[in-house]
């Protein structure tokens, strides 16, 4: 971990009881979902982390508690530092408070997580799907969402599979 980052990490640890993981000079702080807005506010306003570089989630299925990690990658341009904040979330009706009021970029990124992982963001100004069609069922980046769900259609089995396809018919 960078020398300049150590006091910042220490502040967050003391204030929020966050646990720390280190790997290849990166610092990952794990905090509870209800603390995330306060942690981000502290990092943005007092420690100059002006940019939320990345906001995404990771699915640890079949593990259930926690099943997801919501990952906030923060960058400070003034200090040239990066820190990652992770929020573990359980598998049943996962919910995290929104960061869209702190960083405008979180608006679209949270919509992407909602779309891909089905994690809801409390107080999000525009909770719609962003990449997949609005009538789609399921969340593609979850580990229990199958890859290659559709059977390949060839000449010999075209009609047979066509019957089973879920698209709208006359």
């Amino acid at each position, binding site marked *: 971990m960078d020398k300049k980052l150590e006091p910042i990490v220490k502040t967050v640890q003391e204030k929020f009881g966050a646990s720390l993981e280190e790997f290849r000079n990166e610092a990952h702080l794990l905090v509870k979902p209800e603390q995330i807005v306060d942690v981000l506010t502290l990092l943005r306003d007092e420690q100059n982390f002006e940019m939320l570089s990345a906001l995404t989630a990771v699915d640890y299925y079949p593990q259930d508690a926690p099943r997801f990690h919501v990952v906030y990658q923060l960058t400070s341009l003034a200090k040239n530092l990066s820190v990652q904040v992770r929020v573990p979330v359980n598998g049943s009706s996962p919910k995290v408070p929104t960061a869209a009021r702190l960083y*405008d970029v979180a608006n679209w990124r949270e919509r992407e997580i909602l779309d*891909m992982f089905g994690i809801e963001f409390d107080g999000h100004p525009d909770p719609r799907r962003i990449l997949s069609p609005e009538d789609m069922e399921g969340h593609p980046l979850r580990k229990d969402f199958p*890859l290659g769900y559709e059977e390949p259609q060839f000449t010999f089995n075209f009609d047979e599979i066509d019957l089973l396809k879920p698209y709208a018919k006359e």
Partner: protein
Amino acid sequence: MSQIEEVSVAKFKHLVSERALTGETMLLNMGPQHPSTHGVLRLLLELDGEIVVNCIPDVGYLHTGIEKNMEAKTYQKAEVMTDRLDYMNTMGNNLAYVVAVEKLIDLDVPARAQGLRVILTELQRIASHLVWLGTSGLDLAAMSMFLYCFREREQILDIFELVSGQRMMTTYFRPGGVWRDVPVEFEKAVRDFIKIFPKRVDEYESLLTKNPLFIDRTVGLGKLDGAAALSYGVTGPTLRASGVDWDLRKARPYCGYEQYDFKVPVLNDGDVYARYLVRIEELRESLKIVEQALNKLPLGPVRSANRKFVPPPRSEIGVSMEALIHHFKLWTEGFSAPQASIYSAVESPRGELGLLLEGDGGPKPLRVHLRTPSFDNLSVLSQIVKGHLVADLVAILSSIDIVLGDIDR
């Protein structure tokens, strides 16, 4: 499709103004099929006459599930997906991916491979900016720009074909180095390009920079200030045109960028014209890096000698049992990465191209998240087009240089 759904304004109530609900302003779709949206992007516009009141971008028409697909492939095979991501920046995407994998498994890269990576990524940056310059010129009715820019871009694509066999889907960089050494014709091809290109940039500038029509259509349009840009996660030339000096090649050098002498152009106006000037200047700076890297290019191996991650050369397989075993293991099972997560980012022509790469201890990644710059850059559009004419919306949209493959993934 048999069902045609009536789109009601109720769905977008929270995004449009009160006047749209009473029918005073008009809602109009621009795209998804529209030549000026640079791909399949749909913009839902709320218009008061010719003035844009609100703009709601709708993305996802090109969503191909690249992140999901990468999770199902080994680390070596997942790389081909990155080419398909941002098709104007294939070398840069490969670089972002291999740098991330090398960080995760802690792999060394020989100096010659680093030099080649820098030369090719900078050429790719020039090619990408040329496409941008050509198409945004086209949007403003500067037809000839398009022809000139594509002429020079073709020369760069020929160099890519020379080294990798492909013009666009190169997959030339591999974890631990590059695919194979460049052919002998490579140096001459790059030198030829270095020789002609500065003059060509001057020609582009003479067509646009002082052209009164171009200035009329670009100066003062789509103003974006630095603080808002950072909050929206805008990076790359769009951020640097708003007065924020942030370039990952300078701030966090990778692939030996610290050895090269180049400037990061920064302007304060934050309008379409400033973004144009920043990109034109970047063309020159990138060419400077290419020239320095080519002069400094050391001889030596182009792949790491760590056989646990990099397959041995063909010549060794016939004489060494161990090489054969390594070759077999790497191409059947792949290499394993630790159960850990890293984030690494490189500077693409559009901004910070980051990868969150998480391994699960096996040969396939648990999660690959691509933090693509166009996605965040586009999210600021709805803020900077308010109050402008529809015709200017086209100029503003092209000035933030989006690639839809990069947004939708």
